[in-house]
């Protein structure tokens, strides 16, 4: 049968040419990679610094690249998504070379096999020494006898005041500075004086106030309670002290009506002059200065039983790679070393107190009123419990406290529900 489909000679050579061209193009990346292998490695770096500090990290990364030639491909994802992506990508061999997470998450990720431990000799080669660091941040990187992280800084809560709003409400002292509440009840009273129209008196958190577990934890700790009982197995949220703290936390919006709605952006509100007193992260203040907001700060007062200050230290961790790459790991450690050496800039520009002690005596830092205040809070610092089940508990906490925030449930019912859910978490 005459095959009308067979190509003529001109078509054949055209096809062959195309094939060769395609082949050559396909080979280009391989050739480029060969050439690139001689150059400095590029490291991938994930973090959740979605606040104003993110920009500062960008600048420091750029400076690092300029000085060392090592490129840093940074990926910023908000924390909840970051944990999920880390969890999924590392087993698939697609994790980043470096990640910045929180101290509280290390037990969880370490026990899930997501992180590579670092040994003493590696630490030694790059000059990381325990005595340089605030002890609790250095110790916190150890899980089951192995070290998984190198500390960076200690983000914490601090109390912000909008000077104009406080003045207008008459809540200033004889020196013209905003009055600092000395108890929870006084805070509520002050907030009530401020709240009017679309201006709110008080907010705890940045975004998604209803789900701000950081603030919720803070109140728990101020009342001597915690997510887990001291044995780190049973939930501690149904204890009376915890319920009391939860009730206080949930009262600002639903009961006293001094706080914005659950999904409000408190940072925008404070910047726009619609929020008087703001208990939020230290990482916000440089952004406030850039936006020229007239504000002052005060140490977190004793709103409940103890003047605890909530902190969530950042730690560098090293996700397990698909295949060991010594050059990449070395580049990563070089980056961490460099950041640690420049941590004073990080503190100054991003507002995060460093975990490295030497930066505390830097005169630029002690000369800044906000940073001074943050440093002074050190004796009252507290952070999350060291259990692999901390992250899972936080995940189930969010919707529960949101219902509490909007007044859909009572504190007791919410905490009992939360205790039930924590008990039901897969082991």
């Amino acid at each position: 049968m005459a095959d009308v489909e067979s190509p003529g000679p001109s078509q054949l050579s055209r096809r062959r040419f195309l094939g060769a061209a395609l082949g050559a193009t396909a080979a280009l990346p391989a050739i480029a990679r060969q050439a690139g292998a001689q150059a400095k490695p590029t490291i991938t770096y994930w973090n959740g610094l979605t606040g104003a500090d993110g920009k500062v990290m960008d600048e420091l990364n750029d400076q690092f690249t300029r000085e060392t030639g090592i490129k840093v491909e940074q990926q910023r994802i908000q924390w909840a998504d970051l944990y999920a992506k880390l969890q999924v990508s590392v087993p698939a061999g697609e994790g980043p070379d470096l990640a910045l997470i929180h101290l509280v998450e290390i037990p969880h990720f370490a026990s899930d096999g997501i992180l590579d431990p670092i040994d003493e000799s590696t630490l030694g080669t790059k000059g990381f020494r325990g005595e340089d660091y605030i002890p609790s941040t250095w110790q916190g990187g150890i899980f089951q006898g192995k070290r998984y992280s190198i500390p960076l800084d200690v983000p914490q809560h601090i109390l912000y005041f909008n000077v104009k709003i406080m003045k207008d409400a008459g809540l200033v002292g004889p020196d013209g500075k905003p009055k600092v509440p000395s108890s929870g009840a006084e805070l509520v009273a002050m907030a009530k004086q401020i709240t009017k129209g679309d201006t709110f008196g008080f907010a705890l958190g940045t975004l998604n106030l209803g789900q701000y577990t950081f603030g919720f934890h803070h109140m728990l700790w101020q009342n001597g309670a915690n997510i887990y009982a001291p044995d780190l197995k049973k939930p501690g949220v149904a204890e009376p002290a915890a319920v009391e703290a939860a009730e206080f936390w949930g009262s600002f919006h639903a009961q006293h009506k001094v706080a914005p709605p659950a999904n409000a952006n408190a940072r925008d509100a404070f910047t726009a002059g619609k929020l008087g007193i703001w208990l939020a992260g230290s990482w916000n203040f440089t952004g406030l200065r850039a936006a020229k907001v007239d504000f002052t700060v005060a140490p977190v007062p004793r709103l409940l039983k103890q003047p605890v200050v909530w902190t969530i230290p950042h730690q560098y961790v090293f996700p397990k790679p698909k295949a060991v790459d010594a050059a990449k790991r070395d580049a990563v450690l070089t980056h961490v070393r460099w950041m640690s050496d420049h941590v004073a800039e990080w503190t100054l520009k991003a507002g995060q107190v460093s975990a490295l002690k030497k930066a505390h005596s830097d005169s630029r830092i002690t000369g800044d009123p906000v940073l001074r205040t943050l440093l002074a809070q050190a004796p009252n610092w507290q952070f999350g419990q060291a259990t692999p089940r901390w992250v899972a508990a936080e995940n189930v906490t969010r919707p529960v406290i949101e219902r509490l925030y909007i007044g859909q449930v009572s504190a007791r019912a919410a905490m009992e529900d939360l205790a039930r859910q924590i008990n039901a978490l897969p082991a």
Partner: protein
Amino acid sequence: MLRKARLREGRLTPWLFLGPGLLLFVTFRVYPLLDGLYLSFTNARLGRTQPAFVGLANYERLLEDTRFHVSLWNTAFYTIASTLPILAIPLLLAVLLDRGIPLRAFLRSAFFFPFTLSVVTVGLAWLWLLDPVVGPFNYYLKTAGVPVRSWLADPSTAMWAIILTTVWWVTGYYLVIYLAGLQDIPPELYEAAALDGASGWRRFWAITLPLLRPVLLFVVVTHVIGSFQVFGQVFILTGGGPGDATRTVVQHLYETAFRSFFQFGSASAMAWVLFAIILGFSAIQFRLLRGHTEF
């Protein structure tokens, strides 16, 4: 002669034509479907290479999973509450546009435009529009004297805000479908009815609606099956909040499998429950409207 010509080709030919697509389909539709059913009876989770058989345990756990029940309820509410607006609004627009009015092409394009956007873009645009402090939506309502609140933060209005967003997004698509359907109606019917003294409204009820029935059926079925699986808008606008007020089944599934718990077995059980519900609904739908359409 034809028969001989056909026979010459050989038995294999149909399968050669069907082959690539069928391979694709079996590997990526049939196999996962059945594998999902299998997974739903195991304790599979991310990182667990040897999942063990656990019988009906996952399904039993669903009976106690209050968040799953809430998400089923929310999804049902969303589907039902959005059906009337999505049926009616594009229909109304189509009928109006069908009157031989000037600028018809521009109007059709304007209403269709949102449909070309991805669900994330739509969600982001409305998230910003509905911002309680600086969003124009609340600002103009306030100036008009309408009491406003943070629509997305209030559990009683959050779902409606999502429905509004969806209506904005898909109206143009259904509008075009209705327009095509309306064009198939012979104008003589209207003329005859008008001559008989029928008002516009009567003409609509007696002629337009009945003749549009197959299109209406298509719209309802498409909309319902899609609504059961709503995810993108909810994810962007409320993330399932406030307090799970807008949490939907697919979101619960997504979080169980890929965000919070990485439990593949549980998530597969959820998926099959959803599938059973959709199948059940489709069966009812078809039984009710059997014989009225040709598919």
